[in-house]
């Protein structure tokens, strides 16, 4: 099974769901589940094959597409992109499971959902800048529709804000890519070719920030993160999971695998600015999450904070840091998906509130023990407790920071402490309220359903698996980082 099946299954699934007769909600979600399972299995199979035969010739698909501009339909995967494919597949499966109860216009819901998944797969697989940009933009309209139609709090505003930030970010990316294309002679959009060209330093110093900022906006880089919390809160559960879990990773992936290899000297020039913004994002996101009343807003701002670690890891320009950044992408993808799933689906659909104080009245640790248990584990993973994926990632980033800019480690430590504080506060208030149990009987809530339990189990087990035995993931990521793309970046002092 080639990695192409991830793409094919997602887009074919989306088309199939749309072609179903009206009023076939059950069929729609089954097709969506099958399509996302196929994608996840294909990604997992490709990862396993890569681990077994690390030197096997990589799969690639290359056809001319727009010959006038030297644009190829070029798909290929290295270990790094395979690991992100697997992340996408896992979050997709969990997302479908958490959307099992969608009854309002289920066919377009799952069609948009699968389109986003397909676009994300496409970005991770593209080796042509034009193709990558196509997949990057395919995601935008379904995002808007998912939030505006199926969302909750302030959905039309949140959807429009998120969409305008996304399209603005892609305008910057378009400029950056086209500048690189033109400066490289205007013959090819092939990413490996574009990265092999030595651009004039003066060009790099103004083109790099444009391109990086474009990707950085989608990665939730402070101060361009404001779309993320409002958008994630307004989105339906599955969309929040996708947005925080994988779509924000598109920005991080693009920054790492497009912006940095294309303009390495520009990167060196701007490296400390990025690191500074990342650290501010880590602390700012954590502090803001500390003051939120809405459980989803807490998770939304925690995403901003966690995405800061990814950017910081990249900005170190060290092997440890970048590897940690990618590990954090995977870790945060899983943990954010889990947190949003529990807060948006498991809790909200039963209590119809996300207000931390109001949730306290439900005594969730007694009335919904499964959810409280899962949320505790997810919180631990999110805080970076040893044994979970977050720990491995943050430790690795920390080592990278220590190697490149030791003085930054202080603020990062502050960020980690505040992360612990807001995570514990939210968990405590929402799930383990201190109240007189006899004073008021808590309402009885329906128990967890099987789709919910399986989605939670899937995501938690992956997070623990990475935390306990990160070696396969590290091997995959290092395969990507050892490619010629990163030579000029990671060999820097």
């Amino acid at each position, binding site marked *: 099974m080639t990695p192409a099946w991830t793409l094919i299954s997602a887009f074919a699934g989306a088309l199939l769901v749309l072609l179903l007769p009206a009023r076939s909600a059950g069929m729609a979600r089954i097709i969506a589940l099958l399509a996302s399972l196929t994608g996840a299995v294909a990604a997992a199979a490709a990862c396993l094959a890569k681990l077994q035969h690390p030197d096997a010739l990589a799969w690639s698909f290359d056809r001319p*597409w*727009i010959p*006038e501009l030297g644009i190829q339909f070029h798909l290929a995967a290295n270990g790094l992109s395979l690991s992100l494919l697997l992340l996408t597949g896992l979050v997709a499966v969990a997302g479908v499971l958490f959307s099992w109860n969608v009854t309002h216009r289920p066919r377009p819901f799952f069609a948009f959902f699968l389109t986003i998944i397909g676009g994300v797969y496409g970005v991770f697989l593209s080796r042509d800048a034009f193709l990558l940009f196509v997949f990057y933009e395919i995601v935008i309209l379904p995002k808007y529709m998912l939030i505006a139609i199926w969302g909750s709090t302030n959905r*039309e505003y949140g959807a429009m804000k998120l969409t*305008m930030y996304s399209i603005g970010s892609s305008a910057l990316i378009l400029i950056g890519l086209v500048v690189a*294309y033109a400066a490289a002679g*205007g013959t090819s959009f092939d990413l490996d070719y574009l990265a092999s060209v030595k651009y*004039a330093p003066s060009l790099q110093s103004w083109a790099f920030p444009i391109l990086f900022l474009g990707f950085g906006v989608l990665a939730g880089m402070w101060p361009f993160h404001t779309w993320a919390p409002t958008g994630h809160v307004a989105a339906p559960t599955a969309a929040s999971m996708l947005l925080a879990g994988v779509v924000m990773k598109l920005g991080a992936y693009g920054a790492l695998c497009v912006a940095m290899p294309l303009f390495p000297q520009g990167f060196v020039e701007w490296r400390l600015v990025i690191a500074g913004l990342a650290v501010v994002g880590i602390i700012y996101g954590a502090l803001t999450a500390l003051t939120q009343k809405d459980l989803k807003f807490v998770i939304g701002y925690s995403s901003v904070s966690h995405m800061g670690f990814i950017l910081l890891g990249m900005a170190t320009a060290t092997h440890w840091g970048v590897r940690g950044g990618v590990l954090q992408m995977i870790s945060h993808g899983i943990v954010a998906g889990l947190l949003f799933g529990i807060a948006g689906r498991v809790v909200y659909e039963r209590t119809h509130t996300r207000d931390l104080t109001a949730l306290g009245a439900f005594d969730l640790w007694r009335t919904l023990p499964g959810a409280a248990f899962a949320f505790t584990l997810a919180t631990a993973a999110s805080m970076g407790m040893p044994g979970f994926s977050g720990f491995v990632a943050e430790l690795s980033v920390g080592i990278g920071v220590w190697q490149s800019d030791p003085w930054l480690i202080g603020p990062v430590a502050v960020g980690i402490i505040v992360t612990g504080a807001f995570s514990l506060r939210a968990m405590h208030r929402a799930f383990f309220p201190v109240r007189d149990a006899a004073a008021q009987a808590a309402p009885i809530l329906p128990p967890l359903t099987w789709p919910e339990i399986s989605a939670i189990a899937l995501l938690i087990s992956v997070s623990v698996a990475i935390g306990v035995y990160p070696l396969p993931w590290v091997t995959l990521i290092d395969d990507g980082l050892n490619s010629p793309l990163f030579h000029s970046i990671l060999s820097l002092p």
Partner: protein
Amino acid sequence: MNYSALFLQLLPEAVLVITALVLLGVAVATEAKTRRPIAMELAIAISSVGIVGACAALNFCPTHVQSASSLLVTDPLARVFKAVVLGLGLLAVLLPPARREITQPGEFHALVLFALTGLLLTVGTDHLLFLFVALELASLSLYLLAGFSRSPKAAEAALKYFLFGGVSAAFFLFGLSLIYGFCHALTLPAIAAALTAGPLPPYAVVGLLMVIVGLAFKLAAAPFHYWAPDVYQGAPATSVALIAAASKAVGAVVLVRLLLMGFGAAAGSASWGLMQPGWSLWLGVLAAVSMVFGNVLALAQTSVRRLLAYSAVANTGYLLVALSSNGAVAAGAALFYVVVYGLATFGALALTAAVERERGDDSLGAFAGLVHRSPLQAVALMIFLTSLAGVPPLAGFAGKFVMFGAAMAKSTTHGTPGLTWLVGLAAIMSAISLYYYLMVLKQAFVREAAEVAPVELSTSHRLALLIPAVLLVALGLFPALLLSPLTRALLATME
């Protein structure tokens, strides 16, 4: 002179004119007999047959024959664009005007055919004076078509269109006289030769500026766009479709022909830091003004037709960005874009006409709940508007990307910013444009509306929605299908 070759060369135009005359004859005959105007369906059928026939006649045109003094040329560019104009014209004919608007379908459709004849002649000439006459034939027909429904709004639209058109024609003609005075030639090859032979005569360049102003009016480039919103809103849908798609495509071809093949020596440069006066810089400024004006004003519109008019202004801006780079590949991309833009804007107009038929107006609110009334129409609307906004995988996206890429590749040499200022502005403006297209899509997909009895669309109206939607998706997935032939034709013609 070889008259049979001349006849073959003019065969498509002849077929159109004959069909128009037949249509008029049938209309007069039936009206005299039954005292009722000819049926709309019959008029549509006859004119469609005529257009298809003209398309078939294109095959008989001899290739690369130039009649005396370049009056008529059938170079590859002319042949391709005659086919494009006929295709867009056929779509416009398929979109039936509202019955209460058009009481005399015979005359109306005959005028459509005359306008198409004028557009075909405009595409196939290298002679500036002949170009002017052909353009006026098209314009006069279009003025009449704009005001044909005789409602006060249509009358206002037609009058505005006519007054602005008249002034721009005067500019065009005055520019021509200056060019002739200093180049002593009116055919493009001769002008190109005269310009490269000696130093640039400044008055000829001023003349070119005036000609560009005349064409900017045709293309609805700001600040020569003031007729567009009123015409889009007041004129019958069929006329607007013709003005927005076919007439615009022809304007772009004429501009490409004029600038690349006649006035290449007067290009100057719009590249950052290397600016030199010349049409390149003027087009750059026109492009910037159009993009900013069109996009910003579109944000405030509540009538979808007016919104499409301002989007037309903005899209002209993107087109001029590509042309201002003075590159052949970029010009080929611009020609590709003007076709897919025509398809998308035509589709959006056809859909607005369908909504008007159901809800009585074209306000944003009239689109509310479209997805519940007609899911297929809603999907078509999404295709048209997202193609206009430049969202993949639709043709509008491919067109914009290729235009901007080619413009940058032409203008940038070794680390100079080139046209980055213009392309950057275009990318950002294009991002902003998604906002107003989403305002329409939000109504159609997100908002709910009170139930209204659905109106059955006629078969031809459905075709007018289906064909552009399918083409936009196909050309979005495989842009080379159209881009390669257009670029090849342009390069072959420039040789």
